[in-house]
């Protein structure tokens, strides 16, 4: 089963990217792979949406980038979470949990 990321709320993709980068700096393709693996193939982010989101996050100062060699000795742009990004991730995670809990309560009630 695949869900295209366009089905996601915009903020969700940003949060997922931030979460992914919280582990370690990654390049664009790494982020897609990681999202796909962890979500068991539910989220497949296409390049367009991914890079638009990365550009947005970088301009907001939540991540920063630098060119580095990959393990296959290719040059790739690696994205790292900044201090601000970490804070944002924290607050977004909390907000998300609150909302999920609320939705769950509503679903259970009916």
């Amino acid at each position, binding site marked *: 089963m695949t869900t295209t990321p366009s089905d996601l709320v915009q903020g969700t993709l940003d949060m997922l990217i931030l979460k992914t980068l919280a582990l370690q700096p990654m390049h664009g393709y790494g982020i897609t792979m990681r999202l796909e693996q962890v979500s068991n193939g539910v989220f*497949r982010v296409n390049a367009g949406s991914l890079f638009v989101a990365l550009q947005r996050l970088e*301009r907001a100062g939540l991540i920063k980038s630098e060119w580095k060699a990959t393990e296959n000795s*290719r*040059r*790739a742009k690696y994205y790292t979470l900044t201090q601000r990004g970490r804070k944002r991730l924290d607050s977004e995670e909390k907000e998300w949990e609150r909302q999920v809990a609320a939705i769950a309560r509503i679903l259970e009630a009916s």
Partner: protein
Amino acid sequence: MSVRSMAAGLRSLFRKERAEMELDEELTGFLEMAAEERMKEGMTRQEALRAARLEHGSLEVTKEVIRSATWESFIDTCWRDFRFGVRTLCKSPGFTAVAIITLGLGIGANAAIFSAVYAVLLKPIPFKDSDRLVFIEKQNQPRGWTRNPISPAEIVAWRSESGAFDDVAAYQEKSCVLTGVGEAEEDPCEVITSNLFPLLGAVPIRGRTFSTDEDQPGGPRVVILSYRLWQKRFTAEEKVIGRAINIDGDSYTVVGVMPSNLSHLYASPYGAVPELWVSGIALSPTTVWNDYFGIGRLKPGISLQQAESQMDAISARIEPMNPDLKGWRAQLMTLRRNTSGDTRPALFVLMVAVIFVLLIACANVANLLLARGARRANEFAVRNALGASQGRVVRQLLTESLVISIAGGVCGLLLATLGRKGLAVLAPQVLLRSAPDVAVAAADFRILAFTFLVAIVTTVLFGLAPALQNARPHVTETLKETGRSSLQSPRSRRLRSTLVVCEIALAFVLLIGAGLMIRTLAGLGHVNLGFNPTNVLTLRVPLSSERYREPQARAQFWEQAVSAVETLPNVESASVSRGLPISGWDGQFFTTADDPNPPAGQVPDANYVVVGPNYFRTMQISLRGGRTFNDHDTNASERVVIVNEELARLYWSGQNVLGKMLQIGGAGPWRTIVGVAGNVLSQGPDAGFHSEMYIPYQQFPWLMDGPKHLVVRTSGNVRPETLVRSVVQEIHRIDKDQPVADIATMEQIALEPLAQQHMVMALLASFAGLALILSALGIYSVLSYSIAQQTREIGLRMALGAQQGNVLRLVIGGCARLAAIGIAVGLTAALTLTQLMKVLLFGVRPTDPFTFTAVIALLAVTSILACYIPARRAMRVDPIEALRCE
């Protein structure tokens, strides 16, 4: 937008290639990694790359998606659209030139008039917190008098008792003769309170202003010079401070020099510009001599109305103390408003007129754009087929329009610069006085901003409708028709007709405005003033030096001067007078023997004119009864007076007034009426009659300071200007130190009140002419275009037997319908809009039937002429040709 995003955007905007390369490398890497992943599953490299591209979209599309998500891409597209627009426009230079010039005329007219409006009405006057400064005069509502000078009694009371002001200053206008510095010269001067300049926040460039102990009539005599006088008479010497100069025979010490930009911006624009300010103002709480103007600085937060009602309460309290104060109340206006004079309505009318011109220009350009859009239908259809959204095409077209209007704006600024020079020539003295920089053709940044703003608004006005119309996608129809002239949709035809109707309506209103002004001035030109201003030379001889202190000395001077001038060749007659009609007389109260004790506040008043025996002959004022003055009316003979018909009608209606008695100024001798003079329109052709009393100058004492003007009528048709030299020579022969001022012909003086109407008329007539030409062009272009479109239809009709006459009727009929609707709309608008210019009109109603009929005829004829040329072309359509070409 955050600063960071702004910086990142600017970086990628200016280092576009590098940003592009990085993005390219990153995306390629991404796709290759995706492919490698698939190759691990056994795909060939080729298959893997294809699969990756399928999943993630092509490299170029993805790049476009990423790029367009940023704000700088918007700017980038604008810039590309802009360059594309410039290229497209350069390809059709004819269209571009016409559009730019049309808009340039519209924008230029707006910029020029706006600069005048700004300079006169909006620009703050250069004083500290100038919005709190008010000009203080008084009005007497029961008697219908407004804007009267105030008296010391009122100044003192208002200053000390009203809590509305931080401070109140006062000044008195007069003229001073300056001697001992080169040739004797008379200069306008003002007697001022010491707080006037500090109150305004005006600081002298040399020396100081007056101190409070110099504020008394008996105090030290000190004087402040204007910058101009300092430069001209004292060659800007530094040592002028402390120097003693002679003013009206008294010695004054120079204590300061005011800066040049002070000019005179606190006073009325109708008075003279003072060159000297002297100390010693007499403000006694018991004097009710109305010869002063006040300037107050309101306390913060106090409104004009609050101040006025406070002052009214004080006036009501002091009123019983002196009958002359009866009925008088304060009249305040902001200093800015006072210095603008009565130019407000004229400028307002002109501003509306130029907006109309601009709208007509916009309608014309919109029409051109629509026609051009129809020709470019293929281009838009192709873009549409290739995936451009309607919005994208509209944006492209609007950018093109913006290019046109910016070019039009630049063209307009150049025209405005020329226009301002023209304005300086046309502008009446009042306008130049209240805003000297109207004449300065410097590009103020506000004017630039205004022009730019107008250009932007214009773009939307003329560009939006055609852009929306042209960008409507009819891909299939248009592309199918390739090679044929595309058909005009009914929608587009309606739009163009509407634009033409609007143009005609706007032009109609402008023509009506111009017509009413022309009628006003034509009417005023024929008004009988009650005297004959042609061939009369006037000049002022102040006689203010020491040797003319006694009235006898003055009378003797005038006797000599008049008889000397009368013997000059080409002089028919000469006389003297105190004041001249139109340029201004002073009023005096009087009582009649029949009603010697009128209640306070109802004492009759009349213009007080001291004249010589030949005055009535020289001015050609008719005598309705009795006699004129002669040399037997002296100090020794019976005191006499001549009144005008208006005074006789008001106070002795229906009776014989000869022999009646009156007393002038509440004291002095009783005078017998010996003659009745015809009425004179003494305040200009558009004001009514006033009571007048004429006193022979040989009978002293005079109230006020006696005659000052010499009036000379030339014989035959000799131009009065040619006599100036010899008349001045005669005066200098009597007294070589006597300055002569205000040399003018009576005709010039009579025209001055109409200067503003002349300016409005000249400008409105030019704008209306421009509007007429532009709308004729509009009709012409719309009709030519629609006939070109209808060639096949016309050909078909003629092939089926229609005669040339039928075709002509068809075309002219369509055109006449547009003109008729336009005129009807214009008529309705004009009927309400002309009410706005009522104040500028005289002798015509705003709904003058003659003007309306003439303008309807003019517009109808112009419209028919404008469509006659295309109609003739339609008539000559060759049916065979027309049908073959399709």
